[in-house]
């Protein structure tokens, strides 16, 4: 199945894109998706401790199972205001 991944802030600069479609196996969770994305871009992995995940515009645990067509964001610490 495929899901859409969104990158913001420093992750967007690092990955050189704001979004991409990624193929993951059935049963994959958000953590698996992150591992998959950071295999293509090893620099991403060092940010993992300072990221929070969102699935379909809601904060989500890294253990959340994915479904086809999900929109997943890996969000750096927020700094609005």
């Amino acid at each position, binding site marked *: 199945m495929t899901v859409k991944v*969104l990158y*913001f*802030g*420093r992750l*967007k600069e690092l990955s050189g894109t704001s979004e991409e479609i990624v193929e993951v196996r059935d049963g994959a969770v958000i953590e698996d998706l992150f591992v998959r994305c950071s295999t293509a871009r090893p620099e991403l992995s060092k940010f993992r401790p*300072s*990221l*929070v*995940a*969102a699935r379909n*515009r*809601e*904060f*989500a*645990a*890294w*253990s*959340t199972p994915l479904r086809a067509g999900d929109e997943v*964001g890996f*969000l*750096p*610490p*927020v*700094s*609005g*205001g």
Partner: protein
Amino acid sequence: MKAPHNEDRIEITRAVIPNAEIARRVRTDEDGAIATFDGCVRNHSHGRQTLYLEYEAYEAMALAKMQEIAAHIYLNYPIRRLAMVHRLGRLEIGETSVFIAVSAAHRAAAFDACRFAIDTLKKTVPIWKKEFFADGAVWADGELPPAPAETPAVKPASN
């Protein structure tokens, strides 16, 4: 408990925020207090001189989170109306990046709700700012929003 008012302005914009108009529009004859928060671009950060800021957002989620903050405020503070507007893009020194206005019959609720709105926005709304200096740029240190608890991986049952 009141539902969010239909005319409440909860918004993400790339235009200059019309602070005075927003404050005026939350005002009704039943209110004795309007509290506002004007978050503006400061000319320094960690001892360096800031030239300007750039804001970006996960817009759909940011707007949804701002609406959740508004809903929470209506349930928990005796206020009349609320407005919360955040700007994106390049902002110059002195410009407003976020503006919040709350009207209430009495000042305590207006102050408290306004404080809750900006504090929660800064912790939970997916917006990011990059600070530009004469000699470089950095993404501002931020806060990691609280994430839902992890569920331990479940091993498939063997049979």
